[in-house]
């Protein structure tokens, strides 16, 4: 679904990532780890075309990113659910509107999706907060809201950037539980995190591959975790 082939990226200076090849298969579960500043967020951005690689090729659902115009990129993003590191909400809109924003942007029938939206908010445990503005939510609530928004278009791939970044351990486990359930439903998942305990907790439930960014490269981490 998402393929990176010999991809390098630099923000203008030295290369932050170089010669990375990566393939996300349907139903797979990957962790992406590495110290802060290693380039986890950057790699994720390459996967949903917020960044274009300075070298190498990115293929999304079989289409070359190089050959996509802005509208094609927009349509492709609707098929990838992204939980951004900083959530990226519209602070002036209540939670329901934020979660259903991808539907609105894609021109979907909002009335038809209403039941689905309610169900999704109940699943992430936010049914009591539908009218709250994003700044009024706690860190854990925001992360779950971001996950709900990532799922509203029913994507086959979910990319989550530090989804347990600002939450306590209990909430981290709860969010992990949601991701594990999604994977069991057949969705491909890539989670960037520097929390090794989270990875260990996940490995107890499913077989996840752990990728580590080290020295500008992505390596498959062994069973040493």
């Amino acid at each position, binding site marked *: 679904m998402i393929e990176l082939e010999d991809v390098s990226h630099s923000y203008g200076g030295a290369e932050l990532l170089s010669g990375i090849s990566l393939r996300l298969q349907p139903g797979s579960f990957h962790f992406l780890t590495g110290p802060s500043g290693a380039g986890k967020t950057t790699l994720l951005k390459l996967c949903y*075309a*917020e*960044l274009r690689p300075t070298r190498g090729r990115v293929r999304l659902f079989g289409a070359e990113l190089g050959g996509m115009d*802005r*509208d094609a990129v*927009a*349509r*492709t*993003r*609707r098929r990838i659910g*992204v939980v*951004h590191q900083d959530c*990226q*909400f*519209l602070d*002036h*809109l209540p939670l329901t*509107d934020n979660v259903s*924003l*991808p539907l*609105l*942007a*894609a*021109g979907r029938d*909002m009335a038809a999706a209403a039941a689905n939206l309610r169900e999704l908010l109940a699943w992430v445990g936010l049914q009591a907060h539908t009218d709250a503005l994003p700044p009024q939510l706690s860190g854990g609530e925001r992360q779950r809201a971001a996950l709900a*928004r990532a799922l509203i*278009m029913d994507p086959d791939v979910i990319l989550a950037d530090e989804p347990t970044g600002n939450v306590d351990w209990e909430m981290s486990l709860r969010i992990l539980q949601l991701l594990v359930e999604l994977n069991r439903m057949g969705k491909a998942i890539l989670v960037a995190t520097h929390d090794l305990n989270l990875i260990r907790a996940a490995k107890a439930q499913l077989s996840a591959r752990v990728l580590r960014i080290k020295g500008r490269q992505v390596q498959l981490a062994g069973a040493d975790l």
Partner: protein
Amino acid sequence: MRRLPDLAAALAGDARADRVVPPSGFTAHLTQFTAAAMAFLAVFALALSLAAGRLADHWDEAMARTATVRLSAPEGQMAAQTEAVLEVLRTTPGIASARTIPDEEQRALLAPWFGPDLPVDTLPLPRLIEITETAAGMDADALRFRLAGEAPGAVLDDHTRWRRPLIEAAGRLRLLGWLSIGLIGAAMAAMIALSAHAALAANARVIEVLRLVGARDAFIARAFVRRFTRRALEGAAAGTALGMLALALLPRADAAAGVLAGLGFRGADWLVPLLLPPIAAAVALVATRVTAMRVLKGIT
């Protein structure tokens, strides 16, 4: 024409899609005010253009195809020379009819200038002969040449000499009026583009989020286009209404006042300024869309 459905869609709007961009507070009123002021000015420029056009047509009609022969001759020769002039006119191609203006009529013409008590019959007044030309018109120089031979006291005054500059001035005035309307429209487009640019910059974060959730540029642009189109329409409607009201309340100066008397709308002319609000809305739509699409290209 292609823009018409867009304009309708822009005005109908979609409350949900509109709300993705936060409300902008007082700057909204600046756009409305600008559109109102521009429409107000455009109403006057339009009135000027239409009045100048009317004036030019009026002069053209009233004075086209007529000319006057003025005949001065000693008392004894007047009748003979009048007859000679009429004969020349009868045999000149391009003249439909010629008529000697009777004394009473001439007196009536002069009365405003000299007063009713003037004993016109005792003055050595020239005789006036009014000519109506055919559609093809006459050759004034050839006629002048013939008159000089047959009736030395006759002078041809074919009106075009002083009519032409008047009609030219009126035409120029009309052109200036339309030019002003064009400039007003361009200035409004520029101001709306500037405010749209500012609004896009102020909402850079919002636009980024919309792009991240898969919104196409057209969707984002529409949210701004709708907003500015509606503001321009509201402002221009108010400005147009005020401008038309001001013209309707203009004190009626009578015909003697010339151009001033004609300033304003007559009959069906009153429908023309009603086009200003939709035109302002269309200008706003295009200006905002072009600005938005251009700005959006710079965001991933």
